[in-house]
């Protein structure tokens, strides 16, 4: 399903956060990169109609402004960055079931299996560790099996198992034909999920948008991001991890 923006603009207290963004994402995995404060989260929140904006956001050709909240939640799964900010229920199981009950859908429990180990189910979500909370938070939205996923920095807080779970989740979503938009502020995780396209937000506008294979270190450096060359030099060079000098 295609999600697109037309002249999207967002301002807070007179300060323009996003300026005139027109972009379209089709089925597949898309990375939105940008330095801290570039407007990545605001961009995702605008796509999910969670902030006031000028211009338009179209999902399958229909404006989100004309949709009810329930309809938007059926089409768009928005996963926020800080997992603790979104917990609403007393147990993990209730937290995950909440959206299926609200929307009246059976959901895709394979998504929950990929993210949340069974032993978490009886726990209070606020007592989970950062990584555990992140997994539960994502599962509590994506279980509704929306065709569009918006994942805001999905790798924060995660250990190796958690990163692997999210990579598998994105791969699963890709195989189901979903449109997955992932915001990241560093390039390392992008390589793990092998996106189809990348967009770089800087200064409230999309500076670059192209196929993933076209991404250059020069573009990353211009947008204030750590270039791949630097990561490789550090990890793979003579002083890097696991390399005997």
């Amino acid at each position, binding site marked *: 399903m295609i999600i697109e923006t037309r002249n999207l603009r967002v301002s807070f207290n007179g300060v323009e956060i996003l300026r005139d963004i027109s972009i379209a994402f089709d089925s597949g995995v898309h990375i939105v990169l940008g330095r801290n404060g570039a407007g990545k989260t605001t961009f995702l929140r605008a796509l999910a109609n969670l902030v006031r904006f000028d211009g338009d956001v179209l999902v399958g050709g229909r404006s989100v402004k004309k949709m009810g909240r329930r309809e938007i*939640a059926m089409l768009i799964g928005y996963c926020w960055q800080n997992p603790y900010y*979104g917990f609403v229920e007393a147990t993990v199981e209730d937290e995950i079931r909440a959206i299926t009950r*609200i*929307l009246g859908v059976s959901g895709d429990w394979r998504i929950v299996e990929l993210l949340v180990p069974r032993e978490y189910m009886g726990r209070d979500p606020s007592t989970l560790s950062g990584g555990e909370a992140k997994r539960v938070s994502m599962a509590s939205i994506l279980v509704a099996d929306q065709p569009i996923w918006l994942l805001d920095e999905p790798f924060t807080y995660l250990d190796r198992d958690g990163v692997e779970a999210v990579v598998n989740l994105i791969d699963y979503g890709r195989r189901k034909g979903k449109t997955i938009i992932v915001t990241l502020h560093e390039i390392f995780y992008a390589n793990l999920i092998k996106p189809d396209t990348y967009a770089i937000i800087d200064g409230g506008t999309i500076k670059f948008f192209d196929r993933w294979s076209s991404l250059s270190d020069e573009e990353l450096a211009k947008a204030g991001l750590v270039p791949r060359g630097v990561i490789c030099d550090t990890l793979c060079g003579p002083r890097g991890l696991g390399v005997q000098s």
Partner: protein
Amino acid sequence: MILSVVQEVLGYRVKAPRIVFSKWFSIAKIALFILSIAVPVVAPTAVSLGLVASLVILLAVLGLRRSAVYTVFTAAILYLIMFSTAFLLHGDLERITRLTLLASSSLSTIILIASTTKPSMLRRWPTLYLFSIVFANTLKEVVDIATVYRARGSGGLRYVLQVVVASMAMSIARTSTLVDSLKARGIEVTE
């Protein structure tokens, strides 16, 4: 002491037996809440005292022992302060007794309701649902923020004021993020 009561109340919602979340128990809780206000106002003191004692025993039987002790403790402190003030100023001692019983009975039923009501039970009423979520989240953060202030060496009245002010600021800030969380799940809530 109040922080340990908050922890007990929030923890109870996770481990409580299923029956306390049933429809019939909810009806009983509402009836108890009405009784907890009406009885101390209209009934003889002995009846009110009996009600308070029953509510405290109910809390203890359900496993909310710290809350039961807290209810008795605060009632005793409140009565002592109010009684001595009324005695010195030649006030109405019976009214003081009724007020203390009213405070104790309503406090114990509020504790009972808070510890046996999951937010999911209020999902049909978005504003109430949001209120219960903000309430529970704020309580959890109050416990955290109190630990931080204590670790910084804060104490006495200053410590209490710092925690109260921080809690109020937190509940306001937290409301908007929780509204987003509900909207993402398909519930329209006006802030």
